[in-house]
């Protein structure tokens, strides 16, 4: 066991810290207040190469370890969780291409995604198929003109701002999840319509959309092999859960740091808040929860680099870290008292931003199913 980071990981964390503390931090409150899309922050990260963190160097990536990537994701979420959500959604799209696409498709698309020129969206979830993708209704039918795609996806992060979407659709409805294929869809394809962004509780700078498809795609829009979509999506989500865990750690750490600073600054009954034992207990719990979340996240990231299956580790990390983020951000509001409830301070935003981490990319309950199946198999 070695609990130190290597020099690459530290260098990436440092680089992320610099740009996040300077740029992302200045926009985060505004995005939240105005619900403006986090474009500016996302672009700034793109120009510096952060869109390529999940890719190997042959596709324009930087060959960063999953630990280094987790540290960077954590840093981004610490300063602007909305930007982090849009970025990790982009990773879900590019991970899909990396895992499921043909070599030609990867070569054509991924370098542009790595360099910050093309933003992706990952379109799996449907109004009637959230936790169970096998129930999806979106259909792709091969016709003389190409693939005819029909159906509705929802809660799609980046949606109308994305340059391309990875859309999962049934090509053979009789085959259950084996009948699911993935498609690379240009955002400007005629026959795609986007809702206005959903009014969300948190992550307001990261827009999510409902998208209707009734369009014809070229033959080569099929990503990789027919019927391989479900396997691709599951592998993508294993990876994505590590990023959600890292994001949860980032939000939790922001709330924790704010609370520690507040507990030293704020004077109650003649002494700093943090010298009151009742508050110390809350801070101690927050500290322990954050530490636990951090360790399972790094362990899952390490497992992801090992090349072995890591569904169990990533489910544990996602479950523990997102639940910790919820508890820590809730406690942060409590430590701040009334100040925690108003938007002058960022803690109420952390509280709202953390809430979705227990839901997206598989709810906590889904993670328990994954864990439960793995440990009783």
């Amino acid at each position, binding site marked *: 066991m070695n609990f130190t980071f290597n*020099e*690459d990981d*530290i*260098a*990436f964390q*440092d*680089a992320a*810290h*610099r*740009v996040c*503390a*300077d740029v992302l931090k200045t926009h985060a409150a505004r995005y939240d207040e105005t619900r403006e899309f986090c474009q500016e922050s996302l672009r700034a990260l793109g*120009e*510096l*190469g*952060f869109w*390529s*963190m999940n890719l190997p160097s042959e596709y324009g990536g*930087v*060959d*960063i370890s999953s630990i280094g990537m987790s540290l960077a994701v954590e840093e981004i979420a610490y300063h602007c969780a909305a930007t982090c959500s849009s970025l990790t959604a982009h990773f879900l799209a590019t991970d899909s291409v990396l895992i499921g696409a043909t070599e030609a498709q990867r070569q054509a698309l991924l370098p542009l995604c790595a360099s910050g020129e093309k933003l992706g969206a990952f379109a799996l979830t449907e109004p009637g198929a959230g936790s169970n993708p096998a129930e999806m209704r979106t259909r792709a039918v091969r016709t003389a003109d190409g693939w005819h795609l029909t159906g509705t996806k929802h809660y799609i992060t980046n949606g109308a701002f994305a340059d391309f979407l990875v859309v999962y659709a049934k090509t053979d409805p009789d085959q259950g999840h084996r009948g699911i294929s993935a498609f690379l869809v240009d955002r400007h394809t005629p026959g795609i319509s986007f809702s206005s962004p959903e009014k969300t509780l948190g992550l307001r700078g990261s827009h999510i959309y409902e998208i209707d498809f009734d369009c014809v795609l070229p033959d080569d829009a099929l990503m990789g092999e027919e019927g391989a979509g479900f396997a691709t999506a599951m592998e993508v989500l294993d990876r994505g859960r590590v990023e959600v865990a890292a994001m949860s750690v980032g939000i939790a750490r922001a709330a924790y740091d704010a609370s520690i*600073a507040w507990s030293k600054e704020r004077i109650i009954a003649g002494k700093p808040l943090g010298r009151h034992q009742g508050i110390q207990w809350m801070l101690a719990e927050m500290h322990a929860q954050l530490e636990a979340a951090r360790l399972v996240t790094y362990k899952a990231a390490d497992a992801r680099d090992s090349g072995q299956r890591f569904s169990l580790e990533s489910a544990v990390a996602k479950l523990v870290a997102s639940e910790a983020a919820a508890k820590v951000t809730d406690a942060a509001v409590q430590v701040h008292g009334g100040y925690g409830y108003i938007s002058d301070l960022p803690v109420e935003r952390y509280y709202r931003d953390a809430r979705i981490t227990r839901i997206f990319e598989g709810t906590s309950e889904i993670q328990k199913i994954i864990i439960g199946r793995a440990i009783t198999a």
Partner: protein
Amino acid sequence: MKILVAVKRVIDYNVKIRVKPDHSDVDLSNVKMALNPFCEIAVEEAVRLKEAGVASEVVVASIGPQAVQEQLRTALALGADRAIHVDAPAALDALVIAKLLQAVVAAERPGLVLLGKQAIDSDNNQTGQMLAALMGVPQGTFASQLSVEGDALRVTREIDGGLETLELTLPAVITADLRLNEPRYAKLPDIMKAKKKPLDRWTPEELEVVVTAHQRLLKVEPPAERQGGIKVSSVSELVERLRNDAKVIS
């Protein structure tokens, strides 16, 4: 022209410092360290001079234990061409640092040496001036603007209440102030490339500099906390108190 930039590893400027309970020093265990912000501005200026075709090579040097290589790598990622690590204990006197840098200068023969105006830990604001004196060359401290014109250097300095412009012969030493430029952020691919750039390690012995102590740090304390005063009930009471009790207004 070759430019040498000297940089320092310091506590990250966002970190709130804590004094050790035994008052021996500031507690640096488990705190985030970074490139000193003024040094970063110096690196940026050197890289810009290279991009403008004024400089041919940017060499970055740092003095301290192994860990300073992290900051050298940051400087390499920002565009420096190669790095020199002078392996020495942390927190040496500025005079010793200046002597070590003088030895590096003697070996490298740069046309220009750039430094930050001060480190945000020791707040000394000395090293550049000392180095210039030891080298016997002119200095442009607290620089907010810099241009090379032939054999001369034109530097605008931030002085109390205004700006001063000087023309210096080269070689010269420049120390960077906050407004000299806005440093870029390192790009992830450049961080990876920085690993492949040359980094030489020298020792004070090899540079023939004797490391001696000129000062002794006896104690480090947190600043005295102010005692709270009184609340006044109105503007007129405030004015009355300032006039008659505190006697700070007439």
